[in-house]
């Protein structure tokens, strides 16, 4: 990426707006920063870690970073869908957690084949998404409040499945009157979803399967939102719901679909997470809510898109992952890491949004 290159693209973008004041160098620079500032920051941060730590800039480590952010990315893309239609789904963390417990409980306690467990979880995720949209559209509860209520409900359900216990091989069956040992197990094929590799060879550890799932989800959502006519319609509903309705779009249907997708993606993330940890930990999904929201809103500023978008969200999730990984490698204590994560987020977003103001 050379400087000349980008200035000409930003100029042609500028031609469309009212102010034709692109020719002076300072505004070319600020346009450049506006579009590429966050990507630049990410590259700089990665460069910094590469110089400071030996292990950072290795293929294995970069794949590790991607694996670490894969679940977050999938969940964040769900949040992105709700934000695209001008809604907000805060139930995703709880839904992710529910998928973790439900999938492992189905396999361990009820000995359901793993693929059925996956299907059941995905359907439950879709159902929760549909319920969210029902509360929002039919009962007219504001998005944030409806999904907040759903957050508590799902969290409670999640713990009720096992009466508050974690799910692991050889646990006592909480539903058995005789306190029998649950004799199911999490199938190795299921575990591969979170722990497996493909294309492994002597010299190469292989590409983690979670990374593949993430890339698949990102690709499909990108194509859907950016290239298909449905994406156009989703953004239209988010941009001006009345105008969209009068243009003949069934806005209720679109919003419902967005929330169902959000529920399904949160569940997908939860399934990968369950496979990754190999047991059903309680409330394992909680951190994904805040990180997912952060990644989505970070995405607003990437390439100066000013709207939730797939590329931005993926980049936002990777940003969070890079920070965590690099800081861990530099042996920064874990309690400082959140501080640094917050600061970097605030500074990079602050710079980007500050320059947006005219």
């Amino acid at each position, binding site marked *: 990426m050379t400087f000349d290159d980008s200035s000409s693209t930003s100029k042609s973008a500028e031609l469309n707006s009212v102010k034709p004041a692109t020719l002076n160098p300072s505004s070319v620079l600020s346009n450049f920063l506006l579009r590429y500032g966050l990507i630049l920051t990410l590259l700089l941060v990665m460069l910094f870690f590469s110089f400071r730590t030996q292990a950072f800039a290795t293929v294995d480590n970069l794949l590790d970073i991607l694996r670490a952010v894969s679940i977050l990315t999938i969940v964040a893309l769900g949040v992105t869908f709700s934000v695209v239609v001008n809604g907000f789904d805060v139930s995703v963390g709880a839904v992710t957690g529910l998928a973790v417990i439900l999938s492992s409980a189905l396999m361990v306690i009820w000995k359901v084949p793993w693929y059925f467990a996956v299907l059941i979880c995905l359907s439950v995720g879709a159902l929760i998404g549909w319920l969210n949209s029902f509360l929002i559209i039919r009962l007219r509860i504001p998005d944030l409040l409806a999904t907040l209520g759903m957050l508590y409900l799902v969290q409670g359900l999640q713990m009720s499945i096992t009466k508050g216990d974690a799910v692991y091989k050889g646990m006592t069956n909480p539903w058995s009157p005789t306190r029998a040992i649950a004799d199911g197990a999490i199938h190795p094929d299921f575990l591969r979803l979170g722990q497996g590799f493909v294309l492994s060879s002597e010299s190469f550890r292989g590409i983690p399967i979670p990374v593949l799932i993430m890339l698949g989800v990102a690709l499909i959502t990108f194509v859907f939102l950016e290239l298909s006519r449905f994406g156009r319609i989703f953004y239209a509903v988010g941009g001006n719901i009345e105008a*969209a309705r009068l243009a003949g779009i069934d806005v209720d249907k679109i919003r419902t679909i967005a929330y169902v997708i959000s529920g399904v993606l949160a569940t997908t993330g939860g399934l990968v997470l369950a496979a990754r940890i190999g047991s059903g930990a309680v409330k394992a999904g909680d951190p994904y809510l805040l990180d997912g929201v952060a990644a989505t809103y970070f995405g607003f500023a990437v390439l100066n898109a000013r709207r939730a978008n797939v590329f931005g969200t993926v980049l936002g999730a990777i940003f969070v992952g890079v920070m965590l990984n690099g800081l861990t490698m530099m042996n920064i204590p874990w309690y400082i890491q959140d501080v640094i994560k917050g600061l970097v987020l605030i500074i990079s977003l602050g710079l980007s949004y500050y320059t947006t103001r005219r």
Partner: protein
Amino acid sequence: MTALKASGLKKVFPGVVALDCVDLELHGGTVHALIGANGAGKSTLIKILTGYYPSYEGQIEINGQVVAIHKPMDAFHYGIEVVHQEVDITLIPYLSVAENLLIEKLATPESGFFVRKTELYRQAKESLENLQLDIDVRRQVADLSLPQKQLLVIARAISRNASFLILDEPTASLSLSDVERLFAIIRDLRQKGVAFLYVSHRLAEIQEIADEVTILRGGRQVAHFKRENFEISKAVEAMLGSPPGELFPPREPVSERKLVMEVRNLGQTARLKDINFQVFQGEVLGITGLTGAGKTELLNILAGSQRADRGEILLNGKITRFRLPKDAIRRGIFLIPEDRRNLGLLVENTIRTNITLPFTRDFSRMGFIEPLRERQRVLQIMDRLRLVPRNPEMPAKNLSGGNQQKVVIGKWLLKESKIILFDEATQGIDVGAKREVYAIARELSKSSGVIFSSSDIDEVLGLADRVLVLHDGQIVGEFDASHVDRQQVMELATGASVKQETQIGAQEQ
């Protein structure tokens, strides 16, 4: 008497001279009207006077003293107040009328920590009564109608003892009787020595209220009239820069009218009663009446956007029901809604996205948009509407009102229509754009039914072949527009009780 004298005002933006050496004088006790097409420089001039721009060329004198107006507080200090067309941005919806009216006082430290409601209501009531406005000061502003909000904003400006009051298209959303009330207020304040700068597209109003008229075109002052020698035709010519020609396209004799829609006994709780009419291909059906008479509700029902609870709609002789706008669109019934910014456009999106929004399917293969085909079709539409600049990637928010309206109309030119419904389609757009909208409506009437609804009686009478007059949710008259008595339509629209008011207005003209 107070006087403001601006001379040689000039404002240059990179690449554009928005305002070029314009002089303007405002005198206490007079109404000075400012007119011009969109982009003529009216808003730039207003922004200079109200301290929106830190820098500009030229000087402003108030009562003979050269003053510096470079920030909004300066303008406030000299008693210059502006009432913008979009009132919602200056009102706080969840506060009461009284709180909005006295917001400045509430924000000063002297008012103390606690809000003294009774005192607040008393003061607010007093300043509203001074203007003979009957609005409950305890109501939330969110519950007010648009005209009420407009009058409230004007009342607020006056209560700050403005000596120079700038009204930017104050009547755009007012009904006839509200306009009369506003004019009464203006006349009253004019007598008390307030100087008005009155910006409007409605030339008939200007003829009624203005003492002086300045006309801008392309940032320059092109004409100035005193009340005595003001003529609408001369004003239009000055605004357009060429003889106006006919504002309305000629009515063409129709060889055959084809019935496309019939409405029978349509009703909607308390809003509409016993509506019966027919729509023919080959003619423009005009609907007029005051704001709030039910025109918008009626059109929305026809377009599937609202539900009727009585009566039926027959399309080609068959009873039809629409659950959603998309059902009506599928049958070829297209609505150009009032309030284009909020209902008709995705303002952040491009012309292209806006135009193809209802029919993305036609530009897609297996769900994927084909950008080239889309762009080509949009360019065709833009050419047909003579929409310049010829750039489909321009965001809608950067377009003038007239061009925005063309974009809203443009999306319905993609497909053949059965009936096109125009709801207040010329609101807030300049004369040139109005003329083009009329021409489009006339042209469309050759291939489909056209309903043109507007509270501007003159435009409905000028354009339509047949006119329905709505009052209070009922059709009170149906006329052949070529020989119709304007006075009679006016009386029907305002209802018999308001009859006298209209006559007073007419006498003063």
